[in-house]
């Protein structure tokens, strides 16, 4: 990191709590817009509950459409937070400091978005889902089917949601104390209650630091399991073409990291634009995340290559026909081309240029491009895979999403955006204590006339 802005504790408090103590003009407008979209989506959901899933475009043989695509997409985005936060904490990467909180919060809201877009909404009678998810039906003696991936899935997602929410909360405690000390009256009491009486003793700090590392080490295996299990929702089935593949778990994970880290980079840029935190999130941070993205994207592309190559390796007619459909038949071929270009061929060569990696606008464009591509990737896995006749289906068919589905997809995007905006109004999106710790541990080694940035390690 070459750009060093030294800030005092007081300046850091003022800068980073500005999103809480002052309301920018755009904030109510943006939040209201998100709320309107969200409520429209909820209305569509209520309509679907009332009329049944027939109002969607789902029909034989394509029973999974936008909802599942969106579910996988948001689960993928949710992997960013923990991946960025946990791995960078474990490797003691200094550039993690301003981005961990936003990444973790993005995880939580994305997971809730995934739950809203989840398989639950199109089971027809979602209120009965608890019967097959939770083992409590004592009266009838009907118990959950442990062998079903749809039991593994909620157990993993709920574990991940609990873990990441607690992770956010634990890391938030010292910052809540800062807000408590800067507010008065009932507001101060609420923050004080949430801060649990934090005072900043050496034991509390020690545990805070250890907690960051320990929870990272514990959440990482959960993060890996979640998307693996989501992938097994598909791969465990032998019916639909192209799904029954062993590579799905790591392929989904690396894809999730690709889209998730890109989403974090997008959030970083937006944070700088909206809150003017350019002293904290600098081109150096974008450069570092850009370099990370090159590696992640290339690893993802390798798995994409393996998935494709082994699909052709099967030499089985239905599998080859499905691949042909994906690549050569409209509109799938157009989507496939857009997917490959936006997910890899456009952003990765761009990131090879330092100027692009250090430019906020370009990073915004390229990372948004990745997520357009990765959304399409999920669509291309799910829908064409179901369209062909299978051993368990009797007819061919296609899929066109209905307005209800489109509104509900928009709803999830509005939810995440609204969640982030609301969070930023109430809690700091950049961890203040982490920034302050970075300032304490910052040093410089002089070698001749050169000054090398350095950091203190215990």
């Amino acid at each position: 990191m070459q750009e060093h802005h030294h800030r005092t504790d007081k300046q850091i408090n003022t800068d980073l709590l500005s999103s809480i103590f002052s309301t920018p003009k755009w904030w109510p407008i943006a939040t209201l817009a998100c709320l309107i979209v969200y409520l429209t989506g909820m209305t569509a959901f209520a309509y679907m509950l009332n009329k049944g899933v027939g109002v969607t475009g789902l029909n034989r043989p394509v029973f999974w459409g936008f909802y599942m695509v969106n579910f996988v997409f948001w689960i993928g985005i949710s992997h960013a937070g923990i991946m960025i936060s946990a791995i960078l904490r474990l490797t003691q990467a200094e550039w993690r400091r301003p981005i961990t909180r936003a990444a973790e919060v993005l995880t939580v809201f994305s997971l809730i978005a995934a739950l809203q877009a989840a398989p639950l909404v199109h089971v027809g009678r979602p209120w009965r889902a608890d019967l097959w998810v939770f083992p409590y039906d004592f009266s009838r003696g009907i118990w959950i089917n442990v062998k079903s991936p749809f039991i593994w899935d909620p157990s993993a997602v709920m574990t991940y949601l609990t873990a990441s929410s607690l992770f956010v909360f634990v890391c938030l405690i010292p910052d809540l104390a800062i807000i408590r000390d800067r507010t008065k009256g009932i507001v101060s009491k609420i923050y004080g209650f949430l801060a649990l009486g934090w005072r900043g003793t050496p034991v509390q700090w020690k545990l805070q630091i250890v907690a960051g590392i320990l929870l990272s080490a514990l959440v990482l295996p959960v993060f890996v399991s979640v998307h693996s299990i989501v992938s097994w929702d598909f791969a465990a089935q032998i019916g639909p073409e192209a799904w029954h593949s062993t590579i799905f778990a790591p392929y989904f994970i690396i894809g999730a990291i690709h889209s998730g880290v890109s989403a974090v980079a997008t959030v970083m840029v937006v944070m700088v634009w909206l809150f003017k935190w350019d002293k904290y999130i600098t081109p150096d941070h974008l450069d570092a995340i850009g370099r990370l993205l090159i590696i992640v994207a290339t690893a993802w592309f390798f798995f994409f290559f393996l998935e494709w190559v082994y699909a052709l390796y099967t030499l089985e007619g239905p599998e080859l026909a499905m691949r042909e459909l994906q690549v050569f038949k409209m509109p799938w071929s157009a989507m496939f081309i857009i997917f490959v270009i936006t997910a890899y061929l456009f952003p990765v060569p761009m990131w090879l240029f330092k100027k692009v990696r250090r430019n906020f606008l370009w990073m915004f464009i390229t990372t948004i491009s990745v997520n357009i591509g990765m959304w399409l990737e999920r669509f291309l896995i799910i829908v064409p895979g179901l369209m062909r006749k299978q051993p368990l289906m009797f007819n061919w068919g296609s899929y066109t999403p209905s307005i209800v589905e489109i509104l509900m997809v928009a709803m999830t995007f509005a939810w995440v955006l609204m969640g982030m905006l609301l969070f930023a109004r109430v809690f700091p999106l950049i961890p203040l204590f982490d920034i302050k710790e970075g300032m304490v541990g910052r040093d410089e080694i002089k070698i001749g006339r050169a000054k090398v940035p350095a950091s203190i390690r215990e």
Partner: protein
Amino acid sequence: MSTSQNTHEQTQFSKQADLTAKLVGLHVSKYNKNTIFLIILSVLSIIGLIGLIVKITNDGFDNPAKWGYYVTFVVFLLTTVQAAPMVAIAPFIAKGHWNRSISKVAQLFAPLGLINLLLFIPVLCVLPSLSDGRRTLWFFESLKMNAYMPHIITLISFICLVLLGIALLWISTVPDFAVLRENSKNTYNKKLFSILSNRWIGTSKQWFTQKHRIGILGAFYFMTLVILNFQISSDFAMSLIPGWIDSLYPATHTANSFQAGVATVIIAMYALRKWGGCKDFIGFDQFWALGKLMFALSLMWVWFFFSSFIIFWYGAKPTEKAIIELSMTGPYFIPFLGSAFLLFILPLLTMPFNRIRRSILGPTILAFFILIGSFLDRLRIYVPAYQLSDHPNKHNFYLPDVPKTILPDIPDLMIIVGGISAVILTYILLTKFIPVVSIWQQKELSLYKIHKKFHRTEVLVLGKPE
């Protein structure tokens, strides 16, 4: 914040000079003079060579089933010795400091790929051509490919990997050769090191290009290693087993090769620390860092393994059931159990404990077991693959019956013992010419790593140049 930079600058010169003298001294004081050990290794290597000749004479190349253990051993060397240099490459690209003292320990394994390249030639003779009708990634029938494409392309990749490894070792040692050139009294050595140091005088331009060369060669080594793992696992194992389609297996193979590569380096570190006089340079930090990495790779292995297994178990098609029986529950149940225990369960039970992880002996013992586990993991795949390579049903891409267990014969054991001995012997001989602790990397580290007073305590300050 007060700093001790002035003192740091003043002591830099003397520190660097002391370090050079110490490391040159370490290199010159030949710990590898244990001639009895070298003679034993030489004898065992010759026994291995005899074993190979006996095997070729007795079994020929027409019966692949007889060569299963041999192929297992060659692949084992690929996934241990030839993966070991990755320990030097990845942290170099990530600009890590902890690895500086062991980067050469890892890179020194790269030229040993030459031995494996020679051992690979019989494997090429054993592998059937594509004309036998098996399912392959070369789409032999539809694309009208040459029937020996796997042989040709894999050999090219193998040669590339070995050449890249040697180049990487040489490029990264050039500044050290220059130091040895200046410090050699013997005329022969002076001449040798003059040639090897390639007119190195340490200009800024030379340093700049040298670092970029190491980065680029390292990246290519990594990519070639991944590609080779992919080719070997698909063309020399998967395609020989009718009905086995496991798109994840090449990645599992590669992940295990990284795990075994780290284990190999840990064992070499232990030996060099104990008998090579490197105690001052190879310490807890290195064992701790590599121990953690090895544990993380163990978790990765089990994740990959389980990801494949659950799909086969859940799918439960007849072929999938046969594959599970073949590689896990059937004739190779014991190797499977051994590999699962040594590659995952044992690390899981031991490595979470800091007392084991943060020790010299803990990661070393575990590394030894991981190498055995890796061998067993290769065995349960490659031995049955060569048993099935002439299976009559391969045109149907379906495995109706699972073969019986076969055990290694005497020449196999001779080759394995001899091969390992030859690798150790060559490694020791290489250390005669190449310092096992990189002199320039240690000197550079001394610039960026200082201990200093921080109010009432002492802290370590690590510089990270752009």
